[in-house]
């Protein structure tokens, strides 16, 4: 079933952040060379969950369109909790990049769909996406080094 409600969209963002945190934790175990960076990413994810939940619980009054603000397909935003088994470092980084793009896409689409309707929630989606976008060049740099 598609997601139309804000509660559903918040749960999906939480799930993506939690799963991608697990992904980076696993990456840090498998490839210790860049462990610190991956663990930093995982920790940041928890902060993003808090930031978005705070925004949601702060503005979800009865005056806004909480049940009608989204049209999301959760299948489009499934995130793996670990890199593929036996993936090389390069391939694992490629998977991380693809995951980041998927998550950034989610925040962009969710913010656009709810921008007139959900007060601070879309603004925080955008803020989180902006912060997360810093990861892409870092991951790309690691990928270049790994080649």
């Amino acid at each position, binding site marked *: 079933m598609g997601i*139309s409600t804000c509660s559903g969209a918040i749960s999906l963002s939480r799930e993506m952040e939690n799963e991608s945190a697990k992904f980076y934790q696993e990456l840090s175990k498998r490839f210790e060379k860049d462990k610190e960076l991956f663990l930093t990413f995982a920790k940041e994810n928890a902060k993003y969950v808090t930031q978005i939940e705070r925004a949601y619980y702060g503005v979800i009054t009865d005056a806004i369109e*909480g*049940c009608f603000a989204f049209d999301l397909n959760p299948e489009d935003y499934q995130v793996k909790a670990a890199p593929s088994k036996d993936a090389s470092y390069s391939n694992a980084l490629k998977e991380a990049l693809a995951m980041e793009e998927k998550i950034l896409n989610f925040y962009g689409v969710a913010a656009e769909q709810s921008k007139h309707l959900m007060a601070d929630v879309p603004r925080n989606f955008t803020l989180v996406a902006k912060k997360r976008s810093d990861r892409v060049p870092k991951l790309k740099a690691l990928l270049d080094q790994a080649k």
Partner: protein
Amino acid sequence: MAILEEPIKGIKEVKNYINGEWVDSKGKIVDVVNPATGKVMGKCPVSTKEEINAAVEAAKAAFPDWRRTTPLARTRVLFRLKALLEENFEEVSRIQTMEHGKCIDESRGETRRGIENVEVSCGIPTLMQGYYSEDIASGIDEWVIPSPLGVFGIIGPFNFPFMIPLWSAPYAVATGNTIVIKPSSEVPFSQMRLAELAEEAGFPPGVWNVVNGGRTVVDGMLEHKDIVGITFVGSTPTGRDVIYKRCGETGKRVIAQCGAKNFMVVMPDCNVKATVPAMMTSFFGNAGQRCLAGANLLVVGDDNKFYNSFMDEVAGMSSRIKIGYGLDEAIQMGPVRDKEKRDKIMGYIEIGLKEGAKLRLDGRKPKVEGGLPDTCFVGPTIFENVTPKMRIGSEEIFGPVMSVLRAKTLDEAIQICNDNPFGNGHAIFTQNGRSARDFQYNIVSGNVGINIGIVAPVAFFPFSGMKDSFFGVLHTQGQEAVRFFTESKVIIQRWF
């Protein structure tokens, strides 16, 4: 999508909270049914006259000491209540979904607005300051002290079981009064949880009391000489003919917030993409059981192309609304509170057909997700070709039924709105500032929306209402609530 866990397991027994004690009632016990699942989730007492009297006596006895407690100290109890409500936010919200049927987003919104009222009342040390004039005559000074009055009764409705008593309760106790709350016996659980948290926050015995029940408890409040004022939210016949009238007869202060038939006026220059979801939440949010819900959609202008495309969008989105148990995060609309209310709404749909309106979307046999019994569910329903004289265009239905009317001009639209006896929450949707200004200036409505489908004032503004939607002078929430719960004591001083 997740289905959230129910916070109430098995059958929960509701008790009264009188003088700091949880006490069983001697009255009849009625089942409380979860309207989505059809399962009995608890038992609620229909309390007796003796029990309401006992609560009022406890509140009266607690008043002198509570009044003497400094505003700062009273506020600290409210700060603790606020913290406890935040800690228990999700549980309280889910209880509302279980007892009432509303979706979890709606319940969380209700919880948040309730907490916001506690937050505003935490400003009482400054909110209830008086004012002073030196030398009103030579050597004579004069000032005003807002003083608490005594025991207030708070009568809550079924549609916002948690939030609406909080439009009054925190202001009443913050200003030094004591209270007796009567929740709706159909939805008593969130008020019971609130009272548990109030107890934990540290209100002294007798300051915050809860007596469950029905007409006997209401009559007990109205007749009791020691109740100085009542706040009520409910239907217009009860609010006007019972509460307001009898408070007048017995010299009590009163706020009676009543029924509505709200118009959503749509101009052809509106932002359609943003307006359509606003229509959904306005007409079908809370299954239409809001005194601020849209009831009549009034489309302005002769532009049939705009009308048809707008209505296609509205009907299309309405037909895709997912109906079911509000604890399922995918669900956009829950059931109405009980079968009697569903039957009444069904009756209005029949009336609409007999009156000759065109049934564009029929909600009588809704598709309910999750294999739930359809006892209390009504789907989104849309009637077109409605006129203001039709009963479906003029009377409060209190369900997910949209009546669509048309007006040639904005002036005509405003006239149609103003001819309706209610004046609670009308709104206009336009991108034209002049149209918006004309609307807000000429409309007779306590709450007015400009591109807002549910005109619910935030806690530091009064929840207003006009004509048959409101009886009284001052309103709940914010500064007006502070004035309602205090008397202006004027001191004039001269020293020889």
